[in-house]
């Protein structure tokens, strides 16, 4: 059913954002995140962006100190997900201006709002940056 989870993890392995589209208990999450982070962070630039883990395929991309990891099922177009990560980063970039790890950390709620506009129930719901950001801008104006 598409995207199972989206993780943002820095290169020390600390989770900066976690959004799951299927229910896992906190123990399962901890274990899964640990395994994935160990596997993905050890890889180098010459290796491909896809890692098979349990029943998931992890599509990941690194931006400076931050890794974006998306878990999908085995029936998803990998490159489309890879570029979806970039779309997410570009969207955050448009909002924060030169987005960095700290922006995501200290504006966890905004990162969540954006993600919520982009993915729902594991499916992509919107890919137009201005549409994604519209509700956040509306809120910023109001406050």
């Amino acid at each position, binding site marked *: 059913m598409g995207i199972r989870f989206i993780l943002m993890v820095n290169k020390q392995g600390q989770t900066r954002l976690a959004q799951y589209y299927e229910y896992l208990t906190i123990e399962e999450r901890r274990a899964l995140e640990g395994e994935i982070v160990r596997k993905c962070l050890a890889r180098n630039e010459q290796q491909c962006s896809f890692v*098979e883990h349990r029943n998931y395929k992890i599509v990941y991309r690194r931006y400076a100190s931050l890794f974006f990891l998306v878990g999908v099922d085995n029936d998803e177009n990998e490159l489309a997900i890879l570029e979806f990560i970039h779309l997410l980063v570009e969207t955050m970039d448009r909002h924060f201006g030169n987005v*960095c790890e700290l922006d995501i950390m200290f504006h966890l*709620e905004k990162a969540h709002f954006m993600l919520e506009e982009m993915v729902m129930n594991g499916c992509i719901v919107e890919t137009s940056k201005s549409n994604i950001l519209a509700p956040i801008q509306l809120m910023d104006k109001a406050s």
Partner: protein
Amino acid sequence: MALSGMRGLSVFISDVRNCPNKEQERLRVDKELGNIRTRFKNEKGLTPYEKKKYVWKMLYIYMLGYDVDFGHMEAVSLISAPKYPEKQVGYIVTSSLLNENHDFLRLAINTVRNDIIGRNETFQCLALTLVGNIGGREFAESLAPDVQKLLISSSCRPLVRKKAALCLLRLYRKNPDVVNVDGWSDRMAQLLDERDLGVLTSSMSLLVALVANNHDAYWSCLPKCVKALERLARNQDIPQEYTYYGIPSPWLQVKTMRALQYFPTIEDPNTRRSLFEVLQRILMGTDVVKNVNKNNASHAVLFEALALVMHLDAEKEIMSQCVALLGKFIAVREPNIRYLGLENMTRMLMVTDVQDIIKRHQAQIITSLKDPDISIRRRALDLLYGMCDVSNTKDIVEELLQYLSTADFAMREELSLKAAILAEKFAPDLSWYVDVILQLIDKAGDFVSDDIWFRVVQFVTNNEDLQPYAAVKAREYLDKPAIHETMVKVSAYILGEYSHLLARRPGCSPKEIFSIIHEKLPTVSTSTIPILLSTYAKILMHTQPSDPELQNQIWAIFRKYESCIDAEIQQRAVEYFALSSKGAALMDIMAEMPKFPERQSALIKKAEDTETDTAEQSALKLRAQQQTSNALVVTDQRPANGTPPVSELGLVKVPSMSNVDHSSADHGVTQANGTLTVVDPQPPEPSADLLGDLLGPLAIEGPPGSAVQSERNLVPGTEGVPNADDALAIAPVGEQTNTVQPIGNIAERFQALCLKDSGVLYEDPYIQIGIKADWRAHQGRLVLFLGNKNTSPLVSVQALILPPSHLKMELSLVPDTIPPRAQVQCPLEVINLRPSRDVGVLDFSYKFGTHVNVKLRLPAVLNKFLQPISVSAEEFFPQWRSISGPPLKLQEVVRGVRPMSVAEMANLFNSFRLIVCPGLDPNANNLVASTTFYSESTRAMLCLIRIETDPADRTQLRMTVASGEPTLTFELKEFIKEQLVSIPTVSRGPAPPLPQTQPTSAPAALSDPGAMLAGLLH
């Protein structure tokens, strides 16, 4: 960088960030949790802003991996806040912290519904997203019509409709009935005319889910998908915002092509032509460009187009174009493209008549098997495995073997399994197969499962020509200085059987063979020793004329192990010693193992089993199933009429049964393992896991004639017992039989399901019956999941429900055939008419070679109609008093109770939804519980229970049950009794008279609750 609007939150986040280690972090988090907890306790003082801040902190803590087990209520309550910022936080945090089964979520249903049907579109969006992410069945039933209305409403703006589409997708997955196929397919087709690409993107996802389950109903959507794809590919009417690096929404293009892959074919020539025009353009017009993102996006579309072309079985010309493209991809340096090239080439293997073109790339693929990236190596391995056939098997398997010595541990097991399967499936000659397996064991013994060496033994046993060769090879490996234990097992086994064929060769005299094998004995584990003992016995038997020295040596070993602590070793030692003293009789008993029946390779079965099943089948998998599996054609050589040759019967292992007279007469051997073998009077089907034979205690076998004889003798004793409940009691656990044996204990499975609502009801090698139940008051909805575990269909499937008189049970139609590896769901509606402990039975049968019939108790038991209710002292006592004695209130002294502590008993009660009210009874040895029972005749009825235990004698207690209905009181009392005593009693006689023996409660003032409870019956 601006700080977030919530200062407290920012401070907390930076505190956590500054923690030097995990321990400090935990302390800081604990402190914060404590703080939040206190603040939530006196909620009155909290402003919405504060509440919002704390809820975000909770989410942050949860994200860090700490459990947050409180505050859910506060998060949910924010949903009903009037202002957007609070409401939004409520929605987002609720959907992150809770899941669909959470009770608090139910509290929010009304608010959520009001937001969905309300006029405020930002509220609508929030509510739809929450339901879309975590909505459960209840939401599906109450909200689906509203959501559908929003999705097709012309007055609704796209921002709401796109969310409604995905929300409906969720609800549909929770309960497919919410989408009425007849009415909805036209609407769905209209939705695909949508101009707004956001709405179209989500609608396409919805369509994929609908079509995946029922493509017939959505034919009308097919041309619309092609139109949408044309629009995107030609970049017509695509707003700038939806192009990504110049490419019109690559995600929507991909999704649309994915949807098209769920339709089996495209019949309309015009639609087909238009689609192929688009696909041709994508295939030919995608160039490699410098910009990484553009390149990725265009290749995402290209790979999806490739998949669609493969699916459509296009003309050979366009297919060869695809293979050529893939051939280019698997040779590029760019790792992502190479990975996907390999992956898609593996899919391409399913297309007929391109295999030869793919084979041209073999050398290139083998290079990828040595790539530094494990992801790529795995893809290469899969591809090589898939493309292997008789023509290239030698090359490929030898590559795999070579790679095995350097492969990483993570891959070795898979690698050895695959090499073994390929060697078996496509071996050009059998001696090569033996070579491969022995090399495999030699190089990667740790990763060679038992199945693999069992299989080689089977081949050798069944092919006389192969036996001397295998014996020579086994002998050679034993010369190596250090060999893997599996190698010891397999060579000892083979040499035991066939070393006499080598007797004339140098170094192969019985004595030499014995001593070289015996050298290994000190190095092996307990599981190998029995095999070695069998080998010794067989060597001894083959030594003609007998060699007294060898005999003494071997006897000494048998005697040494006569007192071994391991029962298996001991039994063999004792028996072999006794048998080998018999002289000539040994010849018959120790004869070579007869041929194994042909059966599906357990290896291939294993490989198939590792593929995980998902509820929603992917297009690819569906396709894979439509193709006849190679594996089956090659290996499944069952006689079509299901009547195997008679000689097979000889293979039913009869554990020393035919030898009873020999052994027991001499030594009084106990038949610890000599369990009965249930024999199906019909010629049985060889079961796939007979492989266990080799390790079973029965390596020695009586000559076929006598085996059949004794087997037949056993039949009368065991026939006619296929009672579902008892089936396992007579089926020797871990023993080979030729009937279909259930996996796991049926009675235990039933017991477990009495306590939980989902699980496995029954399983055997061919089918698994799972159950999922949902109970609401006096009604229940069970779903039976009938899963065919095989690669061929199960036929003549029949399920009959035999309901007890108090239950109305209605089973929906059960299909006659379950397709290979498919699971069918059959809902079963249950209505409880009145209280009773009787259970319904599912009479289930199917045919897979033989006819299998089982009768299974259904877990629609009394306690399923109980709803926990906890009652305060103020409510309890007036009720208790108002019910004044038989027949509404019954008391009984129960003896023979399973001894358990009061706490254990309380747990037991709670697990049956008889909720123990702690503290109501001041005597710590007593407990009081309450529950509500639902049935059509009683409606909701409160039941009260009191148990007085005797600390001096835990095997007896006094139980009092009260309710407003005599039958209910009686049935509930009996039900509890059944749970308490070790052997469930089925006596339905009247309750025994009430002996006043237990001095539990002394008379006291009526204000004492204990006294009130005790005194009420007087």
